[in-house]
C-alpha cells in the first residue's frame, strides 16, 4: 500500500467515527456516571462530590477542586495491564482534568473536591478521548454547574490521509520505505468545548506538517460538534430508577 491511497480497513470515511454509544446513570452509587464508546473502545466514568477535600493542604477556600483519575481494567488490553496506576495513567489523568476544567464552574464551593473516576473497560485506541467524553457526561449527570460540554476525538494522519477516531490497527499502520518498515501514523487527540469551540486537550505524536495539523484541527472541531450532540442527547435520557 502506498502512502497516498490509505483506505480504512473498516470502510469508514476519513471523517467518520466508529459507532458511538453513550448513556448516563450506569453506576448507581455515584452522584453521576456515564458510559461512552467509540466502537471497541469503551469507557465508564463515575463522579463523586462535591465533597470535603482530603488531604487538607490541597483545599482551596475559594473553589472546588476537580480531580480526575484514569485507569484501565487489566484485561481491557491484549497484553494484561498490571493493576494500579502507572506513569501513563497519571499523565492521562492530568490532561483529562485540564481538558474538563475550563467548562466547570467550581467557584463558591470552598474546600471541596469533585472526584471523577474513569475506567477503560475495553481498549481499541482513543481511550483517553472516550474517557473524557464519558467524564463530561458524568459531570453533567451529577449536576455539577457547567458552561457547556467537552467532547474529544483523536485525529490521525495515516500515510497522507487525515482521519478521525483511530483504531488500534490504524495506530500501528506502517509503510515500507527503502526496505524498512516505518511507522506512518501521527496521532492527535484533541478536545473542544461545545460552547465557543475552544481547544482544551491537544496532544500529538508522530510527524506532520503545520498545514496538515491545521486540517486535522479543523476536522477535530467538526467531529467533536457531532459528538457533543450525541452526549447532550444521552444526558437527557436519565434513568428513571435514579433518585
Amino acid at each position: 500500500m502506498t502512502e497516498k491511497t490509505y483506505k480504512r480497513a473498516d470502510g469508514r470515511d476519513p471523517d467518520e467515527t466508529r459507532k458511538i454509544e453513550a448513556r448516563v446513570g450506569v453506576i448507581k452509587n455515584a452522584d453521576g456516571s456515564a458510559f461512552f464508546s467509540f466502537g471497541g473502545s469503551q469507557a465508564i466514568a463515575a463522579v463523586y462530590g462535591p465533597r470535603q477535600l482530603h488531604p487538607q493542604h490541597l483545599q482551596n477556600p475559594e473553589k472546588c477542586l476537580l480531580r480526575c483519575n484514569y485507569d484501565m481494567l487489566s484485561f481491557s488490553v491484549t497484553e494484561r495491564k498490571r493493576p494500579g496506576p502507572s506513569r501513563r495513567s497519571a499523565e492521562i489523568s492530568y490532561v483529562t482534568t485540564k481538558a474538563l476544567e475550563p467548562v466547570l464552574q467550581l467557584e463558591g464551593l470552598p474546600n471541596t473536591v469533585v472526584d471523577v473516576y474513569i475506567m477503560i473497560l475495553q481498549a481499541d485506541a482513543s481511550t483517553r478521548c472516550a474517557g473524557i467524553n464519558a467524564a463530561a457526561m458524568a459531570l453533567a449527570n451529577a449536576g455539577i454547574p457547567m458552561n457547556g460540554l467537552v467532547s474529544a476525538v483523536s485525529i490521525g494522519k495515516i500515510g497522507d490521509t487525515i482521519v478521525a477516531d483511530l483504531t488500534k490497527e490504524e495506530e500501528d499502520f506502517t509503510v515500507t520505505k527503502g526496505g524498512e518498515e516505518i511507522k506512518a501514523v501521527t496521532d492527535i487527540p484533541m478536545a473542544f468545548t461545545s460552547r465557543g469551540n475552544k481547544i482544551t486537550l491537544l496532544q500529538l505524536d508522530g510527524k506532520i506538517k503545520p498545514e496538515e495539523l491545521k486540517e486535522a484541527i479543523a476536522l477535530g472541531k467538526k467531529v467533536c460538534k457531532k459528538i457533543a450532540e450525541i452526549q447532550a442527547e444521552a444526558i437527557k435520557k436519565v434513568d428513571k430508577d435514579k433518585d
Partner: protein
Amino acid sequence: MDTSSLTKKRIEELLQEGKRFDGRKPLEFRKIEIETGISKNAEGSARVRIGDTEVLVGVKMDVGEPFTDSPDSGALIVNAELLPLASRKFESGPPQIQAIELARLVDRGIRESEFVDLKKLGIKSGEKVWAVFVDIYPINDDGNLIDAAALAAVAALKTAVLPVLKDDKVQYGEFTTKGLPLKEMPITITCYKIGDSFVLDPTSQEEDSAKVRVTVTMTFDKETYIHALQKSGEGALSEEEILEIIKIAETEGKKLLKRFDEFLKKTAPK
C-alpha cells in the same frame, strides 16, 4: 455512605420477623444476571449483577515459570481492585485488606476445588507453564461482592479460551478455540449474621448491620464437598451456628448451581 445505627436496628428488628426492606426472605437472593464474553481482549470475561451490585471479571493468560516444587503445574493469580468508582467506601491507593481478602477468598475457592486443573497447564517441564490471571473489578457495590465476584470468576474461567502460542510466546490478541482444563464448578455462598438471624445476599445496608459472616465454597458432584471456608468480622459464632451455616450454604448453593448451569447451557465459549 455509612448506614445509620437507627437503620441497622430496624434491619435487625425486621429480620426477627423474617422480613427485609426489599421484601425478600432472609435466605433469598436478589435478581442475578450473568453475561459472558464482555471483553474482546480478554481470554475469558464475565459481568455478574446481583441486584444493584455489579462485578466484572476478566481472565488473561501468559507464559510464566513454574514453581520449583511443581515443574508441570500452571499458576493461578487472583487479584481484586476495589475501585473508588464503585463506592464511596473505596479509596485510591494500594490494595486495602478488603480487596486482598476478596481476592484470596475467590482464589481459595477456585484453587482448593481444583476447578482449574493446574496440573494440565504445563508447557515445558520445569521451564514454562501457563499463568492464569483472574482480575476482579466491582463496578457498583451494593453488598455481597464476594458471592458476585466468585460467580463471575467461575463464569469467566468457564468460557475462557487459550491464546495462540508461537515459539513459547503468547500472540497477544489471538485466540484458539480450546478452553481451559476444568473440573466441577465451585459455588461460593456467604452467610451473614445480623442480630440472631442468618441472611444471604445482603445489600450494603444489611452488610453494614452484620457483625459476622462465613464464606463457604462447595462442589456438588455425586457428593457435597467443602473446599474453602472463612469466618470474618468481629463477632463470634457457636459450633451449632457454623453447622447451620454449612447446611444453608449446601441447600442454597445447589439452587445457585442449578441456575448457573442453565445459564451456561445457553452460552457458547467466548
